[in-house]
């Protein structure tokens, strides 16, 4: 082994540092900070290049595509039932909810309607994926400000919901359970009682999170008044879900345009907050999980009997036409614009995913904030990379 002198070693380190500086513009006043692609706050592989002036952000450029899988292209060569396998993987923590709008769009073109029982079970699983998805956020939001306990609680209690989703569909993360015209299977025996128990546990979990974070001095200081989105800006960027409701916009597709789901037969409330800051987004989501658990309880009580599958042909050919269906998914509004030419495969599927619009506001929103707030603001916007990159 040859020994390297100190001078050689220093030269080597300097060369390495110069290589690492490829994307960094050295200026006298500002600096460029690269966050990601591998960073716990990015829920996947989002890279953020922030130009800083001292502690303040002057400009931010989110760089994505590390996980771009080209689902819109792939959907053009797959039959309609095969597409659901792909779109399960868009928002991978609330998978079942991804399937619903696509299936509804195909059903709309085929003029098929799922029987009532299938619609109710769909709504149950739809809301359960919301709980599984947002409970992850509730734990994660604590993690962004340095509180680790909520994250452990979230992973512990989320399991109750995932177990129930698995018991019903066979898939913990990617159920692939929705079919054009209904559902793959009926619910297993004893599922209703177990699910009610899980919902109760989730309500306890919400109380725990509330006790841990809401009113906590550090949490409030890091989220109140940080990352304020005015309603009109949010609308022009196409924000949806809790992000827009936290800015005081009373709009929920579940209530205003329920489509093929049965939310309008339930007693529930759309929560809004006027502040539009990181805390408001956290608070609205916390209330949403509570509402969802109540909805699931009501749905389980009123579950109608009957078949779970409408009469559909074995080989599904969708008549020519265009349809756009959107639903209120855990991350926000998700829609599929399906163009059919009467084939086995869709001609074009435009996937309108919630996170893509939600995160497109970051260059505007992060301008002028302080470096540590980048993390809490990104955390409060809550995106899943699969939902951005598709």
């Amino acid at each position: 082994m040859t020994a390297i002198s100190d001078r050689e070693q220093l030269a080597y380190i300097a060369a390495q540092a110069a290589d690492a500086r490829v994307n960094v513009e050295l200026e006298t006043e500002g600096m460029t900070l690269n966050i990601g692609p591998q960073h716990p706050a990015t829920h996947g592989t989002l890279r953020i290049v922030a130009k800083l002036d001292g502690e303040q952000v002057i400009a931010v450029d989110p760089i994505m595509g590390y996980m771009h899988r080209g689902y819109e292209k792939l959907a053009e060569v797959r039959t309609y039932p095969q597409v659901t396998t792909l779109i399960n993987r868009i928002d991978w923590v609330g998978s079942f909810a991804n399937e619903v709008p696509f299936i509804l769009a195909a059903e709309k073109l085929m003029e098929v309607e799922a029987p009532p029982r299938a619609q109710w079970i769909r709504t149950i699983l739809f809301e359960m994926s919301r709980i599984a998805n947002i409970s992850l956020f509730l734990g994660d939001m604590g993690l962004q400000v340095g509180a680790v306990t909520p994250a452990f609680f979230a992973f512990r209690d989320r399991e109750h919901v995932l177990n129930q989703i698995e018991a019903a569909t066979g898939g913990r993360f990617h159920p692939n359970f929705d079919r054009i015209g209904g559902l793959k299977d009926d619910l297993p025996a004893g599922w209703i009682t177990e699910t009610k128990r899980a919902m109760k546990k989730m309500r306890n979990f919400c109380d725990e999170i509330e006790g841990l974070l809401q009113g906590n001095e550090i949490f409030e200081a890091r989220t109140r008044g940080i990352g304020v989105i005015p309603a009109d800006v949010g609308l022009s960027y196409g924000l949806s879900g809790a992000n827009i409701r936290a800015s005081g916009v009373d709009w929920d597709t579940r209530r205003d345009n329920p489509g093929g789901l049965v939310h309008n037969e339930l007693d529930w409330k759309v929560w809004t907050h006027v502040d539009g800051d990181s805390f408001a987004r956290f608070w609205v989501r916390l209330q949403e999980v509570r509402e969802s658990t109540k909805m699931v309880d009501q749905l389980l009580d009123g579950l109608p009997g009957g078949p779970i599958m409408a009469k559909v042909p074995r080989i599904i050919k969708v008549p020519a036409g265009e349809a756009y269906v959107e639903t209120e998914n855990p991350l926000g509004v998700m829609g599929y614009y399906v163009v059919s030419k009467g084939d086995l495969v869709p001609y074009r599927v435009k996937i309108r995913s919630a996170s893509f619009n939600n995160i497109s506001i970051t260059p505007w929103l992060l301008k002028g904030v302080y470096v540590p707030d980048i993390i809490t603001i990104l955390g409060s916007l809550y995106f899943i990379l699969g939902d951005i990159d598709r």
Partner: protein
Amino acid sequence: MSRLSSTDTPEETADVAEAAVDNARSDLLTHLAAQLGDGLVESHLAPDDDLWIRVTREAWVDAGDYLKTGLGFQYFNFLSAIDWMPSPFGRDMDSQVDIELGHDEASEIDSSLEHGVTGGETRFQVFARVNDIVNGLGVTLKVDVPDDDLTLASWTGVFAGADWHERECWEMYGISFDGHPGLRHIYLPSGFEGNPLRKDYPLLARRLKPWPGIVDVEQMPGDDDESGDAS
């Protein structure tokens, strides 16, 4: 729920809507026709469901601006494009199983342009959707973009959110947007050549390894007419 807007109550009015007119959407169409004049080429109204309009290239920004400021469509939903030229590879990227099952006539390549709702003249169409969230209405706008000049005025001045959608559209279809602050790659690496969502862009994975197609059609619950035994 109680707070359903009067125009969009799906269940109650669905039967009446067959004969009745969708007042909210037809009013909207009248306003658009009056404002845009010749700019509005064609429209398609599905009562109590949806509205599509096709505008000229010159009227594209005006239509978005009028919808936002004049008619309360403040919500920018998405923007994308469609390539109406059927793939020059025909259906050869499908598996033999699927072809036998589904489309027997599809062996010859049909290269004629066949447009969807609201018609069209060109291979590429850009389409976008905006919403009026107070009244629960949505409009899909389409615009023809001629092959020899694949440019369109940018919507970024009207809807800030159009920025990334136009970048994606530029990358995937090669349509450029005049007035866009920076058309850069958004998903693909910066030296990428080609426009993947164009129909004449081959899907290499299929070229290298043929797709098995429908190898087993799942038995559907209640699907007893084929097999004879009810599940």
